[in-house]
């Protein structure tokens, strides 16, 4: 038996795969996530589980809710304020006092140590005696140029560990050995800050699993690969995008199984929507992501998030334009049509009024059409759907067109509670011909978990001309740029690397400059142990022609006129526009 449990903000989903049979369950997420995990496992009837994988929002929530440890930062003397200076930009161009989130380490716990490395080596030797006393549960160490020479940073971290044996200590070169001190310090600070909280959770989770007769779970990291509890506890910032990563991995898996190695995932939930490009059957990856206003320089599934989903409130601004979100009706009171006192119109209300939702949801909730009508007060619900679709389109274009990919060569994988309601219209806008909707559209993230590979990422900083880089690994990615540029393009390692960089640059930016020197910035590799082969349970074939509403497990699909679909042997609907 293989078990996947994905903890979300409102629900915890479990997927159990046993003897070709797929069982799913949804339980409300409790205050203590480990209880929800065990409850969901029980609900799906898990026993004698061989492999157990888990997606968690514990790290993300602790960061966003500022529940991390009392953290200190040690930097090169003279650069103690690196987290507070950020990159000098203000939070909003025209709201002059709009504030960035407070740094995770307050000024009085940011201290310097006497030492200095430069591009050419040691400028001032390390004086460990200059390190002040620290009062902290967690400590991040980020010294200038440690990505080139980690010796000073290593020595400082060892000294801190000696002085504070119970503190969680992170040296920046361990997590993000790459140049640009602010982004590296931000990553190390978040990793230290989250350490104690995430370790406590993972400890409680391990105990709860033992108590329930479950094996110790593997935890999904932002990179889309799973790792052991100990590995994640050592560097919890690697799990900051654990939740959304499961959906992207699930979408990649489903698209590959349906014969579409190139796809775009569309995971539309109640308050937000995640989209991700899938190439060669794998979710795209990025080297950095902003989480809660902090740059996190760690490998992550390359997801774009839009602050609009099914529960998003529809409103009209001072210029008369119809807007959707970011405010959401949430789970309570929820959309007006839930009949729990919500009075403002939402995307879900619009879908109901347009006849795209059944009178009664799969969970048994009766929808109140009159309440939805009152909320819209005569406004056209089709306009609301068009407005939210415009938001989604921006994200879909960003991951495809703006990264040099033609969306017409991709299938759209729609899931989450609301994704399949909007997918066909979005496909029309992008001229995408195929929309895939999984039978388990409501729990695809958990399904993705059961099949994830085990993965350990490595990055090595180079900053040398590519010609002088010497022998490179055969698998992985190289971050390359023209000497003098600041942004790199990731090119898969292998023969004719330089020429493939020129081509990638041309594809992305419209020109290549074969006369310019190509610089190797970093090489990213990974130790990967493949996940289990997944055989989706058999389903009976079926067909549908639009206009039609399809009720799925935890979601509803809208098939507009002109679209038709067939269900394959694994329950996946392939929807296409009729010629």
């Amino acid at each position, binding site marked *: 038996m293989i078990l996947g449990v994905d903890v979300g903000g409102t629900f915890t989903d479990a997927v159990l795969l046993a003897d070709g049979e797929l069982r799913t369950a949804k339980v409300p997420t409790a205050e203590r996530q480990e209880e929800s995990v065990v409850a969901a496992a029980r609900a799906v009837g898990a026993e004698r589980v061989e492999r157990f994988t888990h997606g968690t929002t514990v790290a993300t929530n602790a960061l966003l809710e500022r529940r991390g440890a009392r953290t200190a930062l040690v930097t090169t003397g003279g650069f*103690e304020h690196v987290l507070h200076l950020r990159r000098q930009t203000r939070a909003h161009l025209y709201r002059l*006092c709009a504030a960035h989130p407070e740094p995770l380490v307050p000024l009085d716990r940011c201290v310097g140590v006497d030492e200095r490395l430069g591009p050419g080596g040691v400028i001032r030797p390390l004086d460990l005696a200059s390190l002040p006393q620290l009062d902290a549960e967690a400590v991040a160490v980020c010294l200038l140029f440690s990505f080139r020479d980690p010796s000073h940073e290593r020595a400082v971290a060892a000294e801190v560990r000696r002085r504070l044996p119970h503190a969680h200590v992170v040296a920046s070169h361990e997590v993000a050995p790459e140049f640009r001190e602010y982004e590296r310090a931000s990553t190390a600070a978040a990793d230290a800050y989250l350490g104690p909280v995430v370790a406590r959770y993972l400890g409680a989770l391990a105990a709860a699993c033992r108590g329930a007769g479950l094996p110790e779970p593997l935890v999904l990291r932002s990179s889309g690969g799973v790792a052991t509890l100990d590995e994640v506890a050592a560097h919890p910032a690697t799990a900051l995008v654990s939740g959304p990563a499961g959906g992207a991995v699930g979408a990649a898996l489903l698209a590959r199984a349906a014969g579409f190695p190139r796809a775009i995932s569309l995971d539309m939930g109640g308050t937000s929507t995640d989209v991700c490009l899938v190439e060669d059957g794998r979710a795209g990856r990025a080297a950095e992501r902003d989480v809660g206003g902090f740059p996190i320089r760690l490998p992550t599934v390359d997801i774009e998030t839009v602050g609009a989903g099914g529960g998003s409130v529809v409103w009209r601004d001072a210029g008369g334009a119809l807007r959707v979100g970011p405010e959401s009706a949430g789970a309570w009171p929820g959309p007006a049509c839930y009949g729990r006192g919500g009075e403002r119109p939402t995307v879900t209300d619009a879908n109901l009024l347009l006849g795209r939702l059944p009178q009664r949801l799969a969970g048994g909730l009766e929808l109140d059409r009159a309440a939805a009508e009152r909320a819209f007060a005569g406004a056209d619900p089709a306009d609301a759907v068009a407005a939210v679709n415009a938001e989604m389109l921006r994200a879909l274009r960003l991951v495809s067109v703006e990264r040099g990919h033609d969306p017409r060569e991709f299938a759209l994988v729609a899931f989450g509670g609301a994704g399949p309601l909007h997918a066909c219209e979005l496909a029309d806008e992008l001229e995408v011909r195929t929309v895939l909707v999984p039978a388990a559209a409501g729990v695809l993230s958990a399904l993705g978990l059961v099949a994830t590979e085990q993965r350990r990422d490595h990055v090595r900083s180079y900053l040398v001309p590519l010609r002088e880089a010497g022998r490179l690994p055969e698998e992985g990615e190289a971050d390359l740029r023209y000497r003098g540029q600041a942004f790199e393009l990731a090119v898969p390692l292998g023969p004719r690397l330089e020429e493939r960089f020129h081509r990638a640059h041309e594809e992305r930016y419209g020109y290549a400059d074969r006369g310019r020197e190509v610089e190797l910035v970093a090489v990213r590799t990974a130790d990967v142990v493949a996940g289990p082969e997944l055989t989706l349970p058999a389903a009976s074939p079926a067909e549908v022609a639009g206009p039609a509403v399809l009720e799925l497990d935890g979601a509803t699909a809208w098939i507009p006129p002109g679209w038709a679909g067939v269900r394959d042997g694994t329950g996946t609907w392939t929807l296409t526009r009729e010629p």
Partner: protein
Amino acid sequence: MTIELQVLASALRAVAEEMGAVLIRSAFSANIKERRDCSAAIFDEEGRTVAQAEHIPVHLGAMPEAVAAVAAHDPAPGEAWIVNDPYTGGTHLPDVTLVTRTELGFAATRAHHADVGGAEPGSMPARSTRLDEEGVVIPPTRLDAAAVDALVARMRNPEERRGDLRAQLAAQRLGERRIAELCARRGRPRVAAAMRELQAYSERRVRAGIAALPDGRYEAADVLEAPEGDLEVRVAVTVRGDELELDFAGTSPQHEGNLNCPLAVTRSACLFVVRCLTDPDVPASGGASAPVTIRAPEGSLVNARPPAAVAGGNVETSGRIVDCLFRAFGRAVEVPAQGQGTMNNVTLGNDGFTYYETIGGGQGACPHADGPSGVHVTMSNTLNTPVEALELAYPLRVERYALRLGSGGSGRTRGGDGVVRELRVLEPCRASVIAERRAHAPQGERGGAAGAPGRTLLNGEELPAKATFDLAAGDVLRIETPGGGGFGVSGARGGGGRARPPAGG
């Protein structure tokens, strides 16, 4: 607005943003790629802004002039045109603008190039008196391979210039392609209608914001620290219903230095303040400026005539215009206290390199929030250059980069703190510093205390606000940027502001 036009408008905004992203990601000089001192925009057939990727406010209102200057030459589709002449569409010489025709209107990109020739490396001389000392003056010119060769040959680091122009050109081509795709898919008339509607939409929102301001006439004045003595910026603001008139009568005449502004820069500063006070989220289309009338006497600091030098006008006078306007509006409504009021422009260079940076400081306190520390406060929002990126690329070492704790003014809410940045040069080179608020501190609002004025020190010796000088290997240039003013009387605070941490570091 109909939903179809709204969807198209969103697509048009995406075109400008994508152009901006391509420019930044494929550029070569630190000033564009790390600091993002650039903008990209698309325009309608009449040359009005439709949408702009916003990185730098000073580019906001100034780009249409460049498009108008090029449009007068009736550019053919496929041609790229270049301009930087402040008196025909530019702002100051390092801001180089490319303009191309699209299927429907124009696309333009503007980037601050690290050097455009002239007497001093970096083309930001502190003591220039005529425009032609500041660099190569480019009137609207068709940009072909020969023109690129001829232009970059007159600038320092020609290969870097060529790379940056190429990045701009890539963004232009992308804009053309995207507009053509939109027209093919949606039909030209519909895209044109969406462009018109975007103008009208911004105008409605800004008018609604102006109507909320109390009618009346409000005046203010402030000063600039020119080498020969203080210069004055004066403004009278008239709010009448949903329209505004901003009159700069009484402002000092243009001077022998380079604090002069072409009208385009003054217009940008005015639109910046209007946007802050009316509707900070309004799309940056030309319609936003329709309810605003600007009167700037010709031959004054805020509407200079050739051949006046302008290097400092764009970066420093623009900020003072903002300070002055806020102070005038402050007679009618609560406005933020003054921020650092300078960009602390530092240019270093020799035959081997040119490096330009601007340094953030304290933002003035707002009525209900402390001013942020270590940021650009008005017409700029450039990023810093990371210490590691800077030292890998230039013969420079950063000795210290820290908040200047305690430099923000006290008050019910506090002004933000300035910054201390020390640069050691490792080779002999020339340096220019253009700064302000060295003698006159940023003022508080409604009883808040002033921020600390800034200081520029060479090996510990204080320098004037504007200085060009030689540096020997090992010399240390230290810039202490001003703090922002406070808002309201201290002690009367209701717990809205943050506690001040102990000074350290």
